[in-house]
């Protein structure tokens, strides 16, 4: 063991990258504030019961556990929605108005280290609580589009309603084991396996065809016509109507061109209850952000409330920005023998919004010019 080793799966942000991160955060936070979202800051660790009470135990393998002095188990937060649900259920119980909250936090998960995935990573996100309507869904999706758009990133937001898949499965007449196998294959994105499994099951052929097609249905609202055969299934019609409505609202927001309907966005069936979405950039092989409606979570904290939100992975946005090539800010070096004049000039430059470094090594003019020529960020 060296004393300069860094923990596997963690990373340092050196100045250029940290600056990019800070810029993205500032800009995004500013937008969240402008849209009426207010920041909450929660402890880095929570009791295990709180996290598992919200997420169930499927996160267990990924948790960083530690022990309090009195023996209780603590968890480094693996996400931010549950701590916020805890806050809402204890501190905002009786609010009638929709609650708009945002966070900017480090998150901890014990995952295998690989590109774009770290054990400690950063998320910016919003939660819109106490608003069941479609306008709430549309607002958070539009906000997600807004923050990606202002980075001038090329992106698309994929939109789905989890109810289409879950209703179909609920009405399929299959036993729990078969349902679980289908869910597992969908999560693994193993469409070949799905085909094999379904061909061996006896069920309504329309259900079968749609279950196989769902993961690859992608396009404008017209793709929903492909679900005609299953519209009568309880829950499906409503899900389609909600999806169509949200798509229409997003057209009013003027972001229709950034949104596609994509029935393959099947994330966290046991958590999400309605509209779900993910944001992608062609610059990056993984999603930049994800979110959706989770109307059952607050119930687990004894405070039944509708809720929707999203989280954006900061490192992933930075990777997309770096892949595209980001512009670093210009900086000035103010140098001279008269320190008073130097300081005044530096102050003036800063007042104009420039970065002004004061030369503290008493370099000659020639040295300064040479230095600027050699500086990476000059």
């Amino acid at each position, binding site marked *: 063991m060296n004393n300069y080793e860094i923990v596997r799966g963690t990373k340092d942000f050196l100045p250029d990258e940290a600056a990019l991160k800070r810029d993205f955060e500032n800009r995004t936070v500013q937008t969240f504030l402008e849209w009426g979202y207010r920041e909450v800051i929660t402890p880095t660790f929570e009791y295990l019961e709180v996290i598992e009470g919200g997420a169930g135990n499927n996160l267990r393998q990924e948790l960083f556990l530690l022990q309090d002095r009195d023996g209780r188990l603590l968890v480094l937060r693996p996400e931010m929605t549950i701590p916020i649900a805890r806050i809402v259920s204890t501190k905002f119980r009786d609010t009638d108005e929709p609650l708009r909250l945002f966070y900017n936090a480090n998150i901890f998960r014990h995952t295998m280290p690989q590109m774009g995935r770290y054990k400690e990573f950063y998320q910016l996100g919003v939660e819109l609580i106490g608003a069941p309507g479609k306008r709430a869904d549309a607002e958070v999706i539009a906000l997600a589009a807004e923050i990606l758009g202002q980075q001038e990133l090329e992106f698309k937001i994929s939109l789905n309603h989890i109810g289409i898949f879950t209703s179909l499965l609920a009405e399929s007449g299959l036993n729990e084991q078969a349902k679980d196998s289908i869910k597992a294959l969908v999560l693994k994105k193993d469409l*070949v396996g799905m085909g094999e499994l379904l061909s061996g099951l006896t069920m309504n052929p329309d259900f079968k065809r749609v279950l196989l097609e769902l993961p690859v249905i992608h396009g404008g609202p017209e793709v929903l016509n492909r679900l005609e055969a299953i519209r009568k299934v309880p829950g499906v019609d409503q899900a389609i109507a909600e999806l169509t409505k949200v798509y229409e609202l997003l057209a009013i927001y003027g972001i229709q061109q950034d949104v596609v309907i*994509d029935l393959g966005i099947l994330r966290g069936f046991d958590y999400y209850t309605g509209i779900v979405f993910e944001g992608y950039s062609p610059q990056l*092989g*993984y999603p930049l952000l994800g979110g959706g409606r989770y109307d059952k979570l607050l119930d687990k904290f004894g405070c039944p409330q509708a809720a929707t939100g999203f989280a954006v992975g900061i490192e992933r946005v930075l990777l997309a920005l770096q892949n595209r090539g980001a512009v670093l800010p210009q900086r000035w070096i103010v140098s001279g023998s008269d320190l008073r004049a130097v300081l005044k000039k530096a102050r003036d430059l800063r007042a104009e919004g420039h970065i002004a470094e004061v030369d503290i090594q008493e370099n000659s003019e020639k040295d300064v010019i040479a230095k600027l020529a050699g500086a990476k960020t000059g």
Partner: protein
Amino acid sequence: MNPEQLTIALPKGKLLGPTLQMLDHLDLPIRGVSDGKRSLVFDFPDQKVSYIMCRPTDVPTYVEHGAADLGIVGKDIILDQAKDVYEMVDLGFGYCRFIVAVPQERVGQPLADFNYQRVATKFPHVAEEFFREQGLQVEVIKLHGNIELAPRVGLAEIIVDIVSTGKTLEENFLKEKANIAVCTARVIVNRVSYRTKYSIIEPMISKMSRLVAEGVVKE
């Protein structure tokens, strides 16, 4: 990633021949593409496609990270790596099986007798998961080749390996004890590419499925 340009990860070795044949049926360029050359990237700017020639075990990695939009690789490798990619088409060729084999004289014993013994394999995840599902614990020994030698030299009692004919097993006095999975070549797709290049990838995938169904794609 250029939104117009498609990058395909191709597996070196025995899957390459049938893969190129299939690409040819899709009217994709294959002139001069082979794994015998030093060149690892083949660019066809006019057809807006390029190929990366990879070791088969690297194909899922290229695709997961989006260095390639899609790839062709054996199910055996997909199973052992569990990468976050879409598995979209079973191409049917490259047939082989994942099996558990033991020395011939022990093949009559119940699998439970092999609890806590050593398993030599190139595929540690597949091996571990199979035995865990049977409620057994084994010590997995990862090797990079010549797995079938391990029992003869006393390195392991069991092997988990892929076989196509079973001849190698016989030559090494081993016998199949259990079948884990049947594997063929698959088409895998990056989850973002599938969305951002939908208009190119979707028709290609449909056509591949059709070619497979019509029996045009073969060894």
